[in-house]
């Protein structure tokens, strides 16, 4: 019974069918399905299908954002059934657009996808100075730090921020993205990882958090 319901959930996430997904989740919970199984065997597998469609060029940013929102709502729906300590989150991510740049779209899409996959995102917003990244990295101890820059002039601030983090003993993996970057200059500025889109970013974060 559950196997069929998980398959339905996968399909409903992959087709962004919110209405039927929630019915299926409710039915699975009524039949006693474990929330962790709903997430791992149903929702996350469905999100994988969304990512594959994105990589194949069948889905685009609108679908990626919608899937992130859908996943977040689905997790909220099953949260009351989770026992304490059970899959509280996939990990903690500190995110922000670097100082000198106020573009947020790429960062927000990444944030939606991360949250949809169960990560807790601490979004510092835009135009974030290096000192704030450091302060929050110390305070929150994130699993991954993500920085975004659309304009090329902000890349030097990224380098400054990463250097400040390292100088202060923060060894957390830093992932960078945005149109101003290439893989090569991401390495040059000291970033650990580079993602050219939100889905690639999620894959990297999963790897960094051992998922």
């Amino acid at each position, binding site marked *: 019974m559950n196997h069929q319901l998980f398959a339905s959930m996968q399909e409903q996430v992959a087709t962004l069918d919110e209405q039927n997904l929630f019915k299926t989740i409710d039915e699975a919970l009524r039949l006693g399905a474990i929330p962790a199984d709903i997430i791992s065997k149903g929702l996350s597998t469905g999100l994988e299908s969304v990512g594959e469609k*994105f990589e194949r*060029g069948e889905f*685009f*940013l*609108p*679908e990626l*954002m*919608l899937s992130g*929102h859908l996943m977040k709502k689905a997790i909220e729906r099953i949260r009351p059934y989770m026992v304490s300590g059970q899959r509280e989150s996939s990990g903690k991510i500190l995110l922000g657009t670097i100082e*000198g*740049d*106020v*573009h*947020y*779209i790429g960062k*927000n*899409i990444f944030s939606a996808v991360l949250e949809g996959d169960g990560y807790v995102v601490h979004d510092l917003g*835009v*135009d974030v100075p290096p000192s704030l990244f450091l302060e929050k990295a110390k305070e929150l101890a994130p699993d991954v730090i993500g920085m975004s820059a659309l*304009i*090329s*002039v*902000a*890349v*030097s601030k990224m380098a400054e921020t990463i250097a400040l983090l390292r100088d202060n003993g923060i060894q957390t993996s830093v992932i960078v993205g945005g*149109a*101003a*970057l*290439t893989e*090569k*200059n991401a390495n*040059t500025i000291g970033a650990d990882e580079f993602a*050219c*889109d939100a889905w690639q970013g999620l894959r990297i974060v999963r790897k960094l958090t051992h998922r």
Partner: protein
Amino acid sequence: MARNYQACWERVLATIMGETPDRVPLIFLTSEDVAARVAGLTIREMMMSPEILAEKSIMVNDFLGGDGMALVANPYCGPFEGLAYAKANGRNDVFVWKDYTTPFIREGLLCQTEEDIETLQIPDHHAVEPWPTIFKAIAILQEKTGMGVDQFSPSLTWSSVQMLRGSQAYLDVRQNPSLLMTLCEKIYASQWDYYQAYRKIAGQPNFAFQCSYAFNQHMLSFEDAWKFEGRFIARFARESGLPLVIHNCGFKPYHMELIEKLQQEKVHVLGVNGSHPLDIDWWCAFRRKFPEITIMGGLHVNAEMENGTEKDVENRVKEVIRRLGGDGRLIITPTCCMPWRVPLSNIKAVSDAVEKYGSYPITIDEHIR
């Protein structure tokens, strides 16, 4: 050595129009942070008057060299159109000025709701700053150097959509396309007003340098990009009668698909300006498919320019010229805007390499084309 402005512009114009110039032209697109540092003024100080803006623009362009003469406050409908929208709607608070980096509007704040879109005021580009200052500065640039007016730079429509509506626009594509289309129509009206003000104050341009930011394969399907931006580009070209140079500095541009579609729509495309793909093989394929279109690019500002050595820069320029420049229709342009981190020695290396390898007739590496 002082630049010969007339020779510079004739070189650029000949290339764009499909003639063979004396050598491959070189244009540096600068960002405001480079300009402010070279000029020794903050961006707002440079924009205090058309005279100062024009004078500092000439100073910066002469300092960098090459064949370009562009205003240092980028006159395209990007950040400064955001400022005009902010002013026209009484929301100066949503615009973020920086002394030494490009200013920007905070995305998504002006059009958060349906009502915001319906009541959005289009800027009067004849009156709402910074446009009158920018247009007058272009006119002064033209008067002093004979360059500057020819290239007009709207930005249809996605740049403004993202500034005004933010990431919600991507949800609107699926959830509320009619609302998004209402916004696009307003933006088009604004861009048309911008064009009229430009003609009146700066003069008549020869072509439009048209941004196409929706046309990136990881952002929107080609059909959606066409629906919310491409059709407006085509409409603008038809209504203005101007040929276009298509600009897109995104990761995965639909350059070929867009140009093909625009040509089907009888739009005259003169050139393409892009940073990606970085692979020159791709651009060789582009050249074979569109032999009549000028390629403006070849160097990515955050690759060789920022992180490479002078030799890396020289090798890249040499390869681009030898593989793409043989028949003319090539302008070397580090794309997109050069940030301050680019070493001056690498900027000089570009100029030196263009002088060394770019004089016509050019030795072509046929076996690698």
